[in-house]
């Protein structure tokens, strides 16, 4: 029988095989039975696979061939900033001086690590226009949560903790925004976007009050539109006694053009795995540092990095701190990559990043406008939304369009988000794609639009060229199988 490499590890396992070699140890055996009661000793060994080294490699190589990354092809996933992840940063993160160091080893033996973190903080202060940075949050959502806990600590310190219990969130926001507010102990008030796809000043005025803890905003927002009233928005929230939170998921649009600090935000997070090129790893690890203005410094997560003379250390004593949100100092290895990226780009390079990212998005939008509904006509920033409502009338859903794109050798855009756009396709090309690539993608979407009219079945039956055809997600959720079951 031929192996198709579709088998699970457990199905190719055979007792007796190994894929490792530990040194022979001459140290005498200590029997666990002499140390603990019998009931604490494992009765049945864990059924882990038994494979040779090549079998393991072939298994994972087979799996990687069924996976799509940025180097496989164009990855226009909106709000995810799928830019090139420089290879040199992978080399650097693997230097023993970064990878083989223990988080609790004496500070004097980790000066290079602390210096790198200090330097990255300084760079991020500059990029965000904030006064202090914490690298601890592991991802954007954790940054949001830490930021909102800082809101909470700030209001409590002002004796308004009990009163200010509401966080305002626009309806176009990422789902993590309202969810982070909830796990920070807040109630959420949703602000409806106006016709232009932005936070309306009137709607905001109606929503703020003495119970407002703050507003969370993504700018540019998830429709790819800049919040043109940002100065007034900040003023309204501040006058009501609230604070402003900047969700940095879309920061790739504004590097060197403006900063959240200038716009009036009090707390920001950045997604280093989006804007600063660290690989997404199929869902993580990310890194979501937060930045705050001076008056919120004392509430930051501890420890913080300190530089005195030429010596770096960690300072733990911050009585007003919200505490620790994650182990150690954040996803250090990810931060090494982001620092390397910033140093590779410089200020001019980052400015060029945003200019090209915005140019690319507007170019794609212009090419696609005749074929798909564009609900918002203004120039976009680094991403834009299309609606598949014309195609829906022909029996072709946005999901079908997404699946058909896979057959053209592209990943699909973000679909059905933001929720306020029907049959939404959200496209973010990034600055690292060449014009020829953008054109090929536009041509594919135009082809699909034509097929939706002439051969809708071609589209609705997609994909045809992947490892599997359309998967049954309903059965997966109705009768969940979440661990391997032996036949």
């Amino acid at each position, binding site marked *: 029988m031929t192996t198709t490499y579709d088998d*699970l590890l457990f199905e190719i396992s055979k007792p007796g095989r190994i*894929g490792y070699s530990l040194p022979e140890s001459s*140290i005498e055996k200590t029997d666990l039975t002499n140390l603990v009661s019998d009931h604490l000793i494992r009765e049945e060994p*864990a*059924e882990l696979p*038994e494979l040779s080294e090549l079998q393991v*490699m072939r298994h994972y*190589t087979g*799996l990687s061939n*069924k996976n*799509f*990354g*940025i*180097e496989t092809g164009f990855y226009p996933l909106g709000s995810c900033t799928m830019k090139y992840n420089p290879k*040199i940063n992978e080399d*650097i*993160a693997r*230097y*023993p001086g*970064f*990878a083989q*160091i*223990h*988080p609790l*080893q004496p500070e004097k033996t980790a000066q*290079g690590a602390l210096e*790198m973190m200090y330097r990255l903080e300084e760079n991020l202060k500059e990029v965000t226009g904030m006064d202090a940075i914490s690298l601890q949050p592991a991802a954007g*959502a954790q940054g949001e949560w830490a930021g909102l806990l800082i809101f909470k600590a700030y209001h409590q310190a002002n004796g308004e903790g009990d009163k200010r219990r509401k966080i305002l969130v626009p309806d176009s926001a990422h789902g*993590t925004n309202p*969810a982070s507010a909830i*796990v920070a*102990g807040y109630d959420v008030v*949703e602000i409806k976007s106006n016709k232009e796809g932005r936070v309306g000043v009137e709607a905001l005025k109606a929503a703020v009050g003495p119970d407002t803890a703050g507003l969370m905003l993504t700018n540019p927002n998830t429709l790819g539109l800049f919040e043109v009233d940002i*100065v007034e928005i900040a003023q309204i929230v501040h006058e009501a006694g609230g604070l402003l939170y900047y969700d940095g998921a879309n920061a790739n649009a504004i590097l060197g*053009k403006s900063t959240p600090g200038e*716009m009036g935000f009090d707390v920001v997070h950045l997604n280093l795995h989006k804007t600063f090129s660290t*690989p997404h790893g*199929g869902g*993580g690890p*990310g890194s979501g540092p937060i930045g705050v203005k001076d008056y919120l410094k004392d509430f930051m997560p501890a420890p913080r990095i300190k530089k005195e003379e030429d010596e770096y250390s960690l300072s733990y004593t911050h009585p007003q701190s919200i505490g620790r949100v*994650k*182990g150690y100092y*954040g996803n*250090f290895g990810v931060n090494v990559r982001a620092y390397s990226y910033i140093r*590779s780009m*410089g200020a001019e*390079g980052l400015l060029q990043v945003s*200019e*090209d990212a*915005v*140019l690319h998005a507007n*170019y794609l939008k212009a090419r696609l406008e005749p074929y798909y509904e564009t609900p918002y006509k203004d120039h976009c920033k680094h991403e834009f939304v299309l609606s598949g409502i014309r195609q829906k009338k022909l029996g072709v859903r946005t999901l079908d369009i997404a699946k058909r794109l*896979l057959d053209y050798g592209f990943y699909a855009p973000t679909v059905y988000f933001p929720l306020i756009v029907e049959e939404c396709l959200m496209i973010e090309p990034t600055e690292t794609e060449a*014009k020829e690539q953008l054109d090929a993608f536009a041509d594919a979407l135009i082809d699909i639009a034509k097929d939706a009219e002439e051969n809708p079945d071609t589209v609705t039956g997609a994909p045809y060229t*992947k490892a*599997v*055809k*359309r*998967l049954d997600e309903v059965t997966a959720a109705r009768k969940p199988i*979440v661990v391997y079951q032996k036949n």
Partner: protein
Amino acid sequence: MTKQHRYLPTTEQDRKDMLETIGVSSIRELFSDIPESTRATKEKAIELEDALSELSLTKHMKELAAKNTTTETHAYFLGAGTYDHYSPSIVNHVLLRSEFMTAYTPYQPEASQGELQALFEFQTMMCELTGMDVANSSLYDGFTSLGEACNLATSVTKKQEVLYSKALHPQAKEVISTYAYGMEYAVKEIGLNGTATDLEALKNSISNETAAVIIQYPNFFGTIEDLKEIKSLLEASKGMLIVMANPLALALLESPGKLGADIVVGDTQPFGLPMSYGGPHCGYFAVKKKYMRKVPSRIVGQTVDKDGKRGFVMTLQTREQHIRREKATSNMSSNQALTALGSSVFLAAVGKVGLQEMAQQNINHAHYVKNELESKGVTVLSEANFFNEFVVKLDRPINEVSDVLLDNGIIGGYDVSSELNEENTMLLCVTEKRTREEMNKLVSILTGEGK
């Protein structure tokens, strides 16, 4: 910008052509929606150091890296939650495959089968080790997994107090306190009996208000707690047993699931992940079946495609923040998929037999050092029931001892004087990587200098 950058393909000609298609005359026009008062200007531009070429970058980064002491030159007897273990070379080779490394969350499962299957296998192996029914596909780290477990327990039991042992990792205590600050429930510490949880005190503290009891297994001081007995203390209440376990120890210790745990969390860093100054590591999160639909973050499930072929998808997604929004019980979005993959490759290579052998070597080595120290007159505070870490009491401050060790090419153990309220105490860790020579050297310094 005057010079083309190696990461940016767009040329001046491309820019001209694209602007023409868009129908604007300059890129500046595309940014005219940014209010003038907030716009960067020449005077108000961001200032960073000049861009570095690849060669200059590597030089700079090598200089920074060179300032750190590493496992390449020093023998580490430091553990305390992060460990210097053997990792087969192939782990890194798989992680470098860009199809895994540079992918996003598998929103289009048909183009992401490789990763989905790998995570399904990860879930399966974590369930095998922990003795639980359902595991998610990873969280940020062991401590945040524990925080999520506390939120789950308080939400399911509708009770407002979480008890944790003083023998819990100090940073885990800090993280759950932050979680409790968010969701506004109480956390309370249960004291020690030696280096283990004081079960009498625990028994007296469990009440109708107890949402959960947290026990680390082996605990922060290395001691193997009796989970079965602890579970029996919880029987009268509806409180849940949350276990934070070192997954390597589970190769030989009875699984928390069999001993009654409701939630098992921890970090798979010992499985092939570099210490990397504390991250990225990989949190795991496993539960009994009845809590399946309460698990935070992503879970991969098996299904079939329209031809009936087996395939994998993210499933039970309605639990997640992107759907529940303000009704969510967790805000988890990014996870640690790539490090979960790394740990899976490690487990696949080391396998059923290897993991037991490795765990056994940890026990052998740690007990060898303990016996040597004890026979030469050093006070050992741990009882015999420890895995690869134990506590010794020395006769002078730990930082002084650490300096001496450092001069001799050794990174010493963690100073637990404040955690144990007992001065001059050190938590030593001995993994399979330590050689007899390194161990003997440690013993001779501690018995010569530390006494």
